[in-house]
């Protein structure tokens, strides 16, 4: 059916504030109904209040230990204001935020405002931006709100995030948003274990596959023989054995110990958001996850992605998207039938799921989709040279075409890495592109559209994706702490990701993400820094360039004001969500002037991803893998933005 056109007129819709209040109340009703039988912990009911935001000039937050009940078990959690997730904080772009965080624990704590641009001393990373919040004290965060969108905040101290210290944050824009909706819900995905973070890490250090109960067994071996024949099966099994790798390694911590939560409720708890048929519902999906990648879908509904990491993107209609720890996506759905829809977030290894329901009345539920088989890694994930993979990148062809390539400083960069051009020679499509830009505002009002001719990939000025051609790894110098290197790394942003590659559904790709408006800094990066993601599954070591944080305490240096290309090369066999504090990463996904900006970027196995960064935030900033245990194991660096003594004299 044709998308309903919403007039951008206040009187046409009930005021959004009013709606929020109402939906908040409805959501509360719905969720309480499901919660009460399962939950004797009265505090827990208040977590549903997370849909009722805290706002204002000064907000008080208290971090304390609480009992937390999941289904029939009770454990000890650490909460913000007594709930998991903590309360939604709702601020307005342009306001001055004052957030007083009181530590009622017996250990230091901290709050990091994930994705927010703020002064470095307000960033909340103990050991990088401040000393932490000692027990019994209050730390006041003060910063101007300089952006809008969906974000979240969490503890950056040890394993506290795993114990429940995370909450959503909504920053309302000054300008009206370029899309319309009738109601909105925050959907916080998380993972909960009754084992302490230290036990999780300790188990993994002692046995890398501790939580993997989906390894290949004798039975699967015989099934594979029956399907593919003896020799191919044997060759496949033996090649993995020879490499001492496990192709079933998708999640370090699995459903064996995790209960996957949606807004703090287990699949049985079934968080429910209510709607009226025909309404346009905005879901602010936040992966406040510690160790889990989710594949999110709502069977029966198309989702229109309108924001990624809080930033407006040109709407993309998808059936499913993969969300990594710390990422956020805002999607708009339009349920027209009077029925329930399952919000289904299956883990990447298929060992479990988080689930909730969109329903027209409390108590409704819809079918839970069938369990999909767990995926397998391939030789491609190992960075092995694939059959038919042309080594075109080796002939430097990309370099020759690139007029800007020669003048660049590329310290530490593999000479074969082609430098893309952000401004390719004008082609006949550029006129069309201009038209598209002029018509931008009109299209902003039609987010539900299935077909947007103006937004086809080919119509915009495309830029070259760094690493589009395979790049050969230089000799492995990452040491014993790194198990393998990707012999060839290549950009894989056009792939949906392992486990979704054969999906009949339309899955969101990183190459689909295009900023709604071009960001002001369109400079070509003047410098490139390459960093390798390294690790060892047998010893559960995780690092950058083979060095854990304590082995490489010298910061990564960005010159203040420079435009720098930061290239991530994943030598491991796992996906890693990389998060840079304090500055945006403009994902170099080929979108030309419309590069989307993100605070967290997933890098697939054997992938090479580049982001362009405008180093406009002087200070020391954390840069790390947002898989919490990877970070704790040492996959962490400090990025320092400063003027160096050479530039200062000029």
């Amino acid at each position, binding site marked *: 059916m044709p998308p309903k056109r919403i007039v951008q007129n206040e009187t046409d819709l009930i005021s959004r504030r009013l709606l929020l209040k109402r939906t908040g109340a409805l959501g509360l009703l719905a969720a309480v109904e499901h919660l009460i039988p399962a939950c004797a912990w009265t505090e827990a009911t208040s977590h549903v209040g997370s849909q009722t935001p805290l706002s204002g000039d000064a907000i008080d937050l208290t971090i304390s230990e609480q009992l937390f009940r999941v289904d029939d078990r009770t454990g000890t959690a650490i909460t913000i204001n007594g709930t998991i997730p903590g309360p939604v904080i709702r601020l307005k772009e342009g306001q001055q935020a004052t957030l007083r965080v009181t530590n009622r624990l017996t250990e230091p704590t901290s709050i990091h405002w994930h994705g927010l641009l703020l002064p470095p001393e307000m960033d909340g990373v103990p050991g990088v931006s401040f000393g932490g919040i000692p027990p019994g004290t209050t730390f006041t965060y003060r910063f101007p709100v300089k952006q809008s969108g969906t974000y979240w905040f969490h503890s950056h101290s040890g394993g506290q995030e795993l114990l429940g210290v995370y909450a959503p944050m909504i920053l309302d824009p000054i300008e009206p948003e370029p899309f319309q909706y009738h109601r909105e819900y925050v959907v916080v995905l998380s993972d909960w274990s009754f084992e302490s973070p230290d036990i999780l890490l300790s188990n993994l250090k002692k046995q890398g596959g501790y939580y993997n109960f989906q390894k290949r*067994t*004798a039975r699967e071996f015989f099934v594979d023989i029956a399907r593919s024949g003896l020799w191919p099966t044997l060759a496949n099994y*033996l090649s993995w054995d020879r490499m*001492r790798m496990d192709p079933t390694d998708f999640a370090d911590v699995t459903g064996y110990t995790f209960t996957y939560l949606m807004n703090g409720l287990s699949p049985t708890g079934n968080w429910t958001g209510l709607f009226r048929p025909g309404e346009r519902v905005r879901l602010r999906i936040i992966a406040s996850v510690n160790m889990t990648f989710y594949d999110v879908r709502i069977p029966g509904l198309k989702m229109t992605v309108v924001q990624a990491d809080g930033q407006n993107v040109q709407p993309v209609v998808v059936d499913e998207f993969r969300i990594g720890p710390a990422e956020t996506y805002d999607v708009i759905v339009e349920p027209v039938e009077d029925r329930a829809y399952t919000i289904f977030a299956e883990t990447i290894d298929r060992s479990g799921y988080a689930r909730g329901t969109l329903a027209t009345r409390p108590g409704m539920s819809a079918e839970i989709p069938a369990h999909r088989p767990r995926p397998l890694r391939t030789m491609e994930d190992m960075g092995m040279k694939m059959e038919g993979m042309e080594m075109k990148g080796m002939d430097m062809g990309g370099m020759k075409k690139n007029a800007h390539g020669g003048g660049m400083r590329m310290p530490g*960069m593999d000479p074969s890495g082609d430098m893309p051009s952000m401004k390719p020679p004008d082609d006949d499509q550029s006129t069309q592109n201009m038209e598209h830009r002029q018509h931008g505002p009109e299209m902003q009002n039609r987010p539900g559209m299935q077909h947007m001719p103006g937004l086809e990939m080919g119509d915009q000025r495309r830029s070259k994706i760094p690493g589009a051609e395979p790049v050969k790894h230089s000799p492995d110098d990452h040491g014993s702490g790194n198990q393998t290197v990707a012999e060839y790394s290549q950009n894989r942003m056009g792939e949906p990701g392992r486990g979704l590659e054969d999906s009949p559904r339309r899955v969101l790709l990183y190459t689909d993400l295009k900023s709604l408006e071009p960001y002001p800094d369109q400079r070509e990066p003047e410098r490139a820094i390459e960093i390798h993601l390294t690790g060892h599954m047998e010893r559960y070591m995780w690092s950058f360039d083979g060095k854990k944080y304590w082995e490489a305490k*010298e910061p990564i240096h960005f010159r203040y004001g420079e435009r720098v290309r930061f290239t991530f090369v994943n030598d491991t066999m796992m996906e890693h969500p990389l998060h840079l504090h304090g500055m945006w990463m403009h994902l170099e996904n080929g979108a030309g002037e419309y590069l989307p900006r993100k605070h967290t970027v997933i890098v697939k196995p054997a992938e090479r991803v580049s982001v362009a960064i405008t180093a406009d935030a002087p200070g020391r900033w*954390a840069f790390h893998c947002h898989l919490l245990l990877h970070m704790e194991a040492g996959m962490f660096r400090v990025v320092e933005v400063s*003027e160096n003594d050479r530039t200062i004299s000029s």
Partner: protein
Amino acid sequence: MTGPYPRDRCYASVLAIVLICLVGQGLGARGVGAQALFGPSLPVPWSEGTNNTSSTASRRFTATSAWLSSNASTGQERTLPNLSPQRGWPSPVNDQENRLYTLIDVLEYRPSTGGGQSPSDYRWDVEGWYGGDYNRVWFKSEGQRNTAFKADYDVDFQLLYGRFIQKYYDFQIGPRVETQTFRGRNVTRGLGVIGIEGLVPYNYEFESALFIDQNGAVSARLSLTKDMLLTQRLIFQARFETNAAIQRVEEFTTGSGLNNLEFGARLRYEIRREFAPYVGVSLDRSFGETATLVRREGGDPSQVRFVVGVRAWF
């Protein structure tokens, strides 16, 4: 790329800063000015010594100084971040933790077989470590009774330093004590150990060691184990072990040459990852001089034993 700074350069930088501090006390006009910019509430380590002359100091410290001097020279009233981490700040991550691991790989009872010539007995094989990712202190203990290789009781204990090398192996070095009992008489010797332990291609756990005893007698041990998953929790473990020696050490029932070969097959069920009861069978046979010595001591150089035990770790 940012590489780690050469250590000596860091030292040089610290030295330089100390010197500058001393000089700066005298002509520290800029230093004072810089401090005033920050105000008293923001402690600035090194601020006393930061001025233009410190440009040779290491990056971390010059960053601060660059900011300060840039301000001093341009007179801009920017609020500048303090780039140095302060004393007392914790590490942002705990990636240096030491852990203790103990694996009881074999702890088993071996019921008597046949007409009493091989009585029921037991065996253990325990190892573990304390340490981090690269450096560990290893401890190992093996003990058994009535083996085809050594008569009566045989107990040994090793305490080794281990260093993580070549991605998959621990290089181990340290002392070992071995005690054997023959008809109530104890003999004990001390040995030096150099070993390699780790995971070889095709996922075999590999353990090898070279022993030199107090009298210079050289022996060696090699073992390989391989796990095969029948189901996620039912696991078949194949085990191979062999011992060899250069010199004949009669006191310890060790002949020169190949001493023994042992094949084991154990089927365990992992109730938890950490705890798995098992049943199995072990074939142990000694050869040559060793077999002769075992026979002379009243042992059986060729044994087939059924075993029942538990594998556990913590």
